[in-house]
């Protein structure tokens, strides 16, 4: 079983090597979704094992899979496959219309797989240092994905993303180094001073004053990488310039990795410092994120940036749930990550189709979509409904649970502010969405559309993602035990 | 106040006043030789002073009392500092006032009076020079205070004799970060306050750049001689302060004549070495543009600031 953990990151890495060796063609392209499916499959095997017999260690204790890790592996596999399947269709179209070259397509394929491999290392690493290295690796890999189109705006976005991303993640490294320092000076030996599982056992003995400094840096650092306000300005640039499937992967899966790291470290902080410190930081970041999203979504003119700001909003909600910290809230946070990942992946992928059809990312360049391209319109609209927490999609369930647990935890004021901001966001998205889907005007003229034959592959990715999102919303029956065990890891 | 202490203080004043024009002569000679000129003889500054003293005193009708008093205040403050600072012995006569803050403000007094005198003449150049000089002083003065503060932290006293004695007792502190940083900061300030390149050029009368020369443009005869002598003296005092605060070896701890003689030789060598360095550097550097002078001084302020942080947190 422990070999399985070591092999896990090598599945996408092997596909990356395959694409690097043979280029992007029909066979290698379909290896990408296959890798995601096998990752999901391995995740389920691991989940069964973990639920029955407890956490599994590997590689001399550097790697460790508990219920939370297993859940995140399945999450990466399932949500990653939406963008992987859509990526097959997307690159085919771009190669067809000359928007990209076969060399760049190859680079795209390699980098997507490397990102997934690094994300798998993030979730199976027990060592906080390894965790950091893996997260920084995802930044480096995705920077080149953001620069995929190589035009002015994408160069600008990748520069801003890399500079802000490295600074943010460097702050997290400083925090991690200080965690190591505090652990060493509290008598924990070098080999286990960075291991999460042993730190959890010994967190009582750590010096609270120094640990507070360390955790402060870590929260700021990983918060930046997750896209929490006030350092969220790179999010709309990077997500709007990345090719649609890469944006889907970054917004849907990658941002969840930093939240995962935050949740893990929050456990240590809560034991050493009591829940107050991280809770305060997270509530501030969460409300600022919601505020930033609400104020900028109303006046937004670019639908990809609108989606990016919606990511800031949802990461804020997850942070709020993490701040509440009760078992119900943590389950809701994990469920929210899953629901947001699925819905946001579908939304970004359908925005890619939208861009192929209209040739613009401006909101006022898209009118009457539901009449003229019913399928794309329906997918785009439904994914937005999922993001706006409309049932049956799972975000409805998770937001409801966050509100309930917040009220139970006497954080009514924070919940009240959050709900008001969510209503503002709801209103502005509905206005923009109605304009795009049903609105009339000069750009509703049919001649403005570019001929683009939607492929079955793309349709499969979009419908599949939405169906899973809805199914998770109706019942998470096969995974409910896994979700609750994972939440217990974090809420003790 | 002991008799020997008074004698030492008087000896210091006499020696520094006598040596200051010579030092300027040596620096000018070094510059001239490096530039390939024969250069004036070393005694030339003394001859200039003698010539100026023999001339008639000319004062503009439009000037007030500040103009007449300024040269005296400038020279008196510099001479007083020359007596206070431990050049020869740590046993200073004026031990109670041998305080770094007192020294700094005595030197500042001279600067302020010179600027006031520049304004007093009512000419364009005088005002310009005074404003530039005040700009520099406004940044240089806090730097000196902060740097000195850094030195006093490790000693626990701002008494000059005590600081020198501490450095003598613990030689390792001379190479500690705080004293190196404070030294760098004070070196920059010395350059600025004594009007050397790259902040000011003592040999220029170009209206765009001059600072010191602009303020003293209206002086002539004996008044000019006093100001020149005071300027020379200030250079010696600053260099002596720098060398003895950071490299105190050779200074006498008693007031015995033989030790004093050795101390005088030691301090002369140190001052001469620093002056030669300044002269050589002046040959190879250009004066910085006036608006970049605040950047230079801001840097020295930061160095002094870092010295204080280091002395607090590393000690």
């Amino acid at each position, binding site marked *: 079983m422990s070999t399985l953990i070591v092999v896990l990151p090598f599945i996408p890495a092997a596909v990356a090597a395959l694409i690097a060796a043979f280029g992007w063609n029909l066979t290698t392209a379909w290896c990408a979704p296959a890798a995601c499916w096998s990752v999901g499959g391995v995740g389920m095997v691991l989940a069964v094992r973990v639920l029955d017999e407890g956490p599994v260690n590997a590689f001399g204790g550097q790697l460790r899979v508990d219920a939370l890790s297993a859940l995140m592996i399945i999450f990466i596999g399932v949500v990653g496959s939406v963008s992987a399947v859509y990526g097959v269709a997307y690159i085919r179209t771009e190669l067809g219309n000359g928007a990209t070259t076969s060399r760049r397509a190859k680079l795209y394929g390699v980098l997507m797989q490397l990102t997934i491999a690094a994300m798998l290392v993030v979730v199976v690493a027990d060592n906080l240092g390894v965790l950091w290295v893996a997260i920084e690796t995802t930044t480096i890999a995705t920077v080149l994905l953001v620069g995929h189109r190589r035009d002015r705006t994408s160069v*600008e976005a990748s520069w801003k993303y890399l500079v802000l991303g490295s600074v943010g993640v460097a702050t997290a490294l400083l925090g991690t180094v200080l965690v190591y320092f505090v652990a060493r000076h509290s008598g924990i030996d070098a080999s286990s001073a960075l291991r999460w599982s042993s730190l959890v056992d010994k967190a009582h003995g750590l010096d609270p004053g120094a640990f507070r400094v360390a955790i402060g840096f870590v929260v700021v650092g990983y918060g930046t990488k997750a896209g929490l306000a006030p350092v969220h300005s790179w999010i709309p640039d990077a997500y709007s310039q990345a090719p649609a499937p890469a944006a889907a992967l970054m917004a849907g899966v990658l941002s969840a990795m930093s939240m995962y790291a935050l949740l893990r470290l929050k456990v240590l902080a809560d034991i050493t410092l009591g829940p107050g410190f991280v809770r305060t930081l997270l509530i501030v970041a969460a409300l600022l994120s919601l505020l930033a999203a609400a104020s900028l979504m109303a006046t937004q003119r670019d639908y990809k940036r609108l989606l990016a700001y919606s990511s800031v909003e949802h990461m804020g909600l997850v942070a709020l749930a993490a701040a509440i910290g009760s078992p119900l809230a943590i389950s809701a946070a994990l469920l929210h990550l899953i629901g947001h990942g699925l819905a946001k992946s579908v939304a970004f992928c359908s925005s890619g189709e939208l861009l192929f059809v209209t040739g613009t990312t401006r909101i006022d360049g898209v009118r009457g979509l539901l009449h003229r391209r019913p399928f794309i319109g329906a997918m785009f609209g439904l994914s937005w409904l999922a993001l706006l927490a409309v049932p049956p999609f799972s975000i409805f369930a998770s937001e409801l649970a966050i509100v309930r647990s917040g009220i139970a935890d006497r954080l009514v004021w924070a919940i009240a502010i959050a709900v008001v901001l969510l209503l503002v966001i709801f209103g502005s998205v509905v206005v923009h969405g109605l304009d795009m889907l049903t609105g009339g005007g000069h750009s509703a003229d049919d001649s403005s559309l570019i001929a683009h034959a939607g492929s079955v592959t793309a349709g499969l990715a979009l419908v599949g993602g939405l169906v899973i999102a809805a199914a998770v919303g109706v019942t998470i029956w096969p995974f409910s035990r896994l979700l609750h065990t994972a939440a217990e890891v974090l809420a003790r | 106040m002991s008799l020997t202490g008074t004698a030492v203080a008087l000896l210091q004043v006499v020696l520094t006043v006598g040596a200051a024009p010579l030092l300027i002569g040596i620096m000018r000679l070094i510059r001239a030789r490096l530039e390939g000129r024969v250069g004036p003889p070393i005694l030339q500054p003394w001859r200039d002073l003698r010539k100026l003293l023999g001339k008639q005193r000319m004062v503009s009708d439009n000037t007030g009392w500040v103009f007449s008093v300024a040269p005296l205040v400038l020279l008196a403050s510099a001479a007083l500092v020359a007596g206070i600072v431990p050049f020869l012995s740590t046993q200073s006569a004026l031990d109670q006032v041998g305080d770094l803050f007192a020294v700094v403000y005595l030197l500042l007094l001279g600067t302020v009076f010179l600027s006031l005198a520049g304004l007093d003449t009512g000419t364009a150049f005088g005002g310009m020079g005074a404003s530039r000089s005040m700009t520099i002083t406004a940044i240089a003065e806090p730097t000196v205070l902060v740097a000195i503060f850094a030195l006093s932290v490790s000693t626990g006293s701002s008494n000059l004799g005590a600081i020198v004695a501490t450095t003598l007792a613990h030689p390792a502190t001379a190479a500690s970060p705080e004293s190196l940083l404070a030294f760098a900061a004070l070196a920059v300030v010395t350059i600025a306050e004594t009007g050397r390149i790259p902040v000011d050029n003592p040999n220029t009368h170009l209206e765009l750049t001059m600072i010191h020369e602009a303020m003293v443009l209206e002086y002539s005869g004996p008044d000019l001689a006093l100001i020149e002598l005071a300027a020379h003296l200030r250079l010696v005092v600053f260099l002596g302060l720098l060398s003895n605060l950071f490299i105190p070896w050779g200074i006498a701890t008693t007031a015995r004549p033989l030790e004093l003689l050795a101390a005088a030789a030691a301090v002369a060598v140190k001052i001469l070495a620093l002056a030669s360095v300044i002269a050589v550097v002046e040959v190879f550097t250009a004066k910085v543009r006036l608006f970049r002078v605040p950047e230079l001084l801001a840097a020295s302020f930061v160095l002094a600031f870092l010295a204080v942080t280091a002395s607090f947190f590393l000690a």
Partner: protein
Amino acid sequence: MSETTFVQLLDLAAGLVLVISFASLWLRRLVTVTRMIAIQGVALAAVAAVIGFYEHESELVAVAVLVCVLRAYVLPALIRRAVLAGSEHREVESIINVPASLLAASALTLVAYAATRDVVALSSAPQVRAIPLGVSVVLIGMLMIVTRRKAVLQMMGVLMIDNGIALVMFLGTSGVPLVIELGVASDVLLAVFILQVLTNRIRNKFGDTDLDQLRALRD
């Protein structure tokens, strides 16, 4: 090595790392600032070497050699290439002037001391007392990124932040486990390499590396 010599050398080397951060805010020519970053790498390696020799840890001395090669030669060389590739005037451009950035950096030093008070209180070792220096270098690197308008200067800011973290690493715990050290080093190398590639792209697209031109993306 006696204890006083050790403390002396350590303080000097660590102090030099911080002073160089100030110098890179003060200097105006891009090439000179690049050289400063290289010297900072040397000073950092000296810190590691001094601690390694004093504590007789050969691993740390080896790490010092690695640090010296990477941070004093390879990474500055990458930045230097980016600097020299630009034919536009090679002077620092900043939103705030030099005295203001120096004063801001001084304030950040105080912030670093205040923030790490609890960390320093944990031990009385001379290394631990110097940890605030590393945190100050990190903050000054951030200041450099926020205020400087040249792509290469932001690159140097990123590197300076990493130098500061490395300093904290050496001072606090005599380095982290070697695997992580290597992972961090390779990530930094990759990041700086990609930054250099991106400056080339910026120059190709905009004809300059002045970041004021990067404002197509805004709300």
